[in-house]
């Protein structure tokens, strides 16, 4: 069955880099959002099984998005954080907020693949 994936990043270039790094031939449909607020709206329209989430974004950042998801009625997606901010505290914070995995930017096909396996979506 086709899996719905939501890619959330304020940088269009970064979103393209992330999408390019996903496993070739994987049966998914991709939606893009440029901040946490747009991502929440997208989840309100349709459930996405997996969210690939940047942290440092305008309007609503990745932390605020995770908090909003946790306190909402929405079916919880699996969230993998993709971040340039690699501080150990950032990693611990997003895990505490419900993220399943943390991938350092720049993302590569191997690191994404490992995170997808870690979360059990592949």
């Amino acid at each position: 069955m086709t899996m719905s994936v939501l890619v959330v990043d304020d940088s269009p270039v970064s979103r393209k880099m992330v999408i390019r790094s996903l496993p070739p031939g994987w049966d998914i449909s991709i939606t893009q959002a440029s901040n946490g607020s747009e991502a929440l709206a997208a989840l309100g329209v349709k459930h996405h099984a997996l969210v690939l989430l940047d942290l440092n974004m305008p309007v609503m950042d990745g932390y605020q998005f995770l908090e909003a998801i946790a306190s909402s009625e929405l079916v919880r997606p699996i969230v993998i954080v993709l971040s340039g901010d690699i501080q150990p505290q950032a990693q611990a914070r997003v895990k505490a907020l419900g993220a399943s995995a943390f991938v350092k930017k720049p993302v590569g096909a191997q690191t994404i693949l490992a995170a997808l396996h870690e979360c059990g979506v592949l």
Partner: protein
Amino acid sequence: MIGLGNDDQRDALSELVNIGMGQAGDSLARLFDTFITLSIPRIELVQPRDVTRAIRALVDAPGPVVAVRQAFSSRIRGEALAIYEAGGCDALADLVTYPDVTSDELLLEVSNVLVGACVGGLAAQFSLDLSFSPPSILGSHRSIDDLLDVAGLPWENALIAEVNFRVVDRAFRCHLLTFWPDESIAVLLRAVDALLATL
């Protein structure tokens, strides 16, 4: 005159700076054993007569500042300017447990870590190894206008990348600006175009 050709170039450069900044934030967090809040990077390409105005708009520091300058070079070269709000430097000193380190020495070390990680991290994404000059204090406890008069940045055009770091629960704040001359901007943009072509 060289220009940032399109939004994709600006966006890609901003993303690459973002990754360099993340590495710098991590280094600073480890140095002070605290959490560092990172800004969203801002990229401006400005002509010489606009540099001062652009920096003033980006930095937004009404009070006295301390600035540290550090040059870097390889196939690309340029200069980094770390600007600290003077009040925050005292807050920084509180975080450090070595009583024999002066606040200037501390700022030089912080600047070295930030510039090395941020600019080095950016260059590494293009497989460029940079060498860095030792950092030096450009001015201490002066207004930003005085400081920029003194700086006399020599570039024909400046590609200014601004990021800022804040230590959580402290007034400490650092703006890191990098300046690149025309030929280095051209090298950076070619590398960016090569990256964009793969997407």
